[in-house]
């Protein structure tokens, strides 16, 4: 359906996209995943013909985007990062205009506009000016524009940015529904979204594809470690003394707000049964365990590892390091053991700056 071959886009000396190649098959949902500024939008803008690549080529249904733009663009519906609305037009006027420039025949335009408005549930907003729509509705109108003319491929750049949780669920169901008779490519920096909706994930970092596979295969890749999280009644130093002699385990200790309770995060090879070793050791030292659970490796881990933001590696490195952290301060320890979700957010914040 779509063939992308050795795509490169240079801005001055910087590579926005650096040698990306992939093939998109019909009837599947593809997800571009990567931190902000990884090159997702640039790649999508090139595929849709908005900007030209420095080198490489894109074939859509056999048509080169640069050499046969008309034929290639006819196969694509595109929702860019910001919905490309004309603010002074009403929703209906805007969609009718978009249908006209997408070569929807005149007698079918009305029905087509009606169809896409229903599909994205904006029918009751048809007389509103685009300027007066909320962010969520702008996004939906942008999406209905992409659906006009029933293109084979639908490309969505960050479709759920700025939507509330309810709208995100609606958007997800909508995309799932589209996948029945369209090929969908979407991009996101939010992992859960991609793993829920996509059949195939391409992880992009610094302009390169660092991994591509089904979500299942990707999570299998990362399951090299077993992480166990415990809450024990004791003080940090005693726990460290007990854990120190244990080999092949790395750990972090964090005093909790409740006095006398300590959170311990321990990571070991996936072959070692971390839970029994630790439970036995703590029991021998007469330390009560009040909670214990295994944290399975998630897609988030692989995402963070592959994109170079690697909090996952730190706790694994050396026990001594974790120990230091524990003694240092609760804050440092919290950082060390911070759940991947939290870490991802901090990273995002950094990127935004």
């Amino acid at each position, binding site marked *: 359906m779509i063939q992308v071959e050795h795509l490169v886009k240079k801005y001055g000396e910087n590579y926005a996209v650096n040698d990306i190649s992939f093939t998109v098959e019909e009837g599947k949902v593809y997800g571009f995943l990567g931190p902000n500024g990884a090159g997702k939008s640039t790649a999508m*803008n090139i595929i*849709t*013909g*908005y*900007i*030209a690549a420095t080198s490489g080529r894109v074939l859509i249904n056999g048509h080169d985007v640069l050499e046969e*733009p*008309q034929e290639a*663009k*006819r196969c*694509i519906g*595109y929702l*860019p990062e*910001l919905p*490309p*609305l*004309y*603010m*002074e*037009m009403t929703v209906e006027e805007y969609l009718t*205009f*978009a249908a*006209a*420039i*997408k*070569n929807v025949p005149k007698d079918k335009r009305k029905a087509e506009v009606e169809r896409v408005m229903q599909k994205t549930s904006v029918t009751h907003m048809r007389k509103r000016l685009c300027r007066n729509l909320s962010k969520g509705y702008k996004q939906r109108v942008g999406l209905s*524009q992409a659906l006009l003319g029933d293109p084979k491929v639908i490309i969505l750049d960050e479709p759920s940015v700025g939507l509330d949780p309810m709208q995100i669920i609606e958007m997800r169901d909508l995309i799932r529904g589209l996948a029945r008779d369209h090929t969908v490519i979407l991009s996101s920096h939010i992992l859960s979204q991609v793993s829920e909706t996509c059949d195939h994930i391409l992880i992009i970092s610094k302009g390169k594809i660092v991994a591509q596979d089904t979500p299942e295969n990707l999570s299998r890749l990362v399951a090299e470690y077993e992480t166990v999280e415990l809450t024990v009644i004791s003080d940090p130093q005693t726990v460290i003394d007990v854990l120190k002699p244990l080999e092949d385990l790395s750990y972090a200790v964090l005093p909790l707000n409740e006095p006398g309770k300590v959170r311990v995060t321990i990571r070991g090879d996936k072959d070692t049964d971390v839970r029994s070793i630790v439970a036995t050791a703590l029991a021998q030292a007469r330390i009560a365990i009040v909670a214990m659970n295994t944290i399975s490796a998630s897609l988030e881990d692989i995402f963070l590892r592959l994109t170079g933001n690697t909090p996952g590696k730190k706790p694994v490195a050396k026990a001594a390091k974790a120990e230091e952290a524990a003694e240092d301060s609760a804050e440092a320890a919290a950082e060390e053991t911070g759940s991947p979700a939290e870490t991802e957010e901090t990273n995002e914040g950094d990127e935004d700056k």
Partner: protein
Amino acid sequence: MIAVFKREFKSYFNNMLGYVVIAGTLLLIAFYFYSTNLVSGQPKFEYTLIDASGFLFTLVVPLLTMKSFAEDRRQKSDQLLLTSPLSVPQIVLGKYFGTLAVFGIAILVLIPYPLILGIMGKVNYMTAYSGLIGYFFLCAALSAIGIFMSSLTESQIISALLSLCTMLFLTMVPMIASKIPSSALVNYIIFTVIAIAIVIAIYALTRNFTVAAIFAVAAEAILIVLFRKFPAVLENSVANLLGHIAVFDQMASLAYGLFDITTLVYYISVAALFIFFTIQSIEKRRWS
């Protein structure tokens, strides 16, 4: 293309801009009509048009064209156009004619003016209406320049300023031309300065030192040869050149004489040239 045309035309009337441009044009012409034709009993309507042209277009063209591409780019709605099956020339022409049509409305309102004069005396309708037609084509040429300026930036203000400066320059061209000494040396120096400016522009746009250097050497070589061997060619050459870009003067020659097809061809050529530049400027942005 027709869809783009319609949208562009309507967009002028979704806010005040279209009304302001048309009303302003009519008000200005009405004032000149009153003072030139009615008060002094002058039967030639084309005099009104020529008197008003410099002031009118300096105001109207920047207003009319400033949002054309700049606004689309800022709102990102150019993504809709450029990823649709439309080609860039179709988009540019659609927008261009949409803009021109707004001015066309003002021209339509001006049609009865010579007839009003006709009630009061003898009017040469031929020159009056060829003047009006010429006016429309003058606006066609200037709008193309304005739209090109708009395609260079995403700020409407900068786009308007660029157009304003260009219009001011064009109105001053005849005056500048009359003040330039005719000696070969002065003309040689002016051309050298222009060549240097072009070289700097080439380097800024392409970042290609070799191309800019080759152009600089070639241009200077030609100028030196001309200056040494054929100084007669250089004499008065700047003034002559300026005469060719004096778009407003062309208008005068159209109205004073009979219907002169070369003037129309001239205006259409200017329009075509700047539409071509606009297309190139948009294409270039996609590549850089």
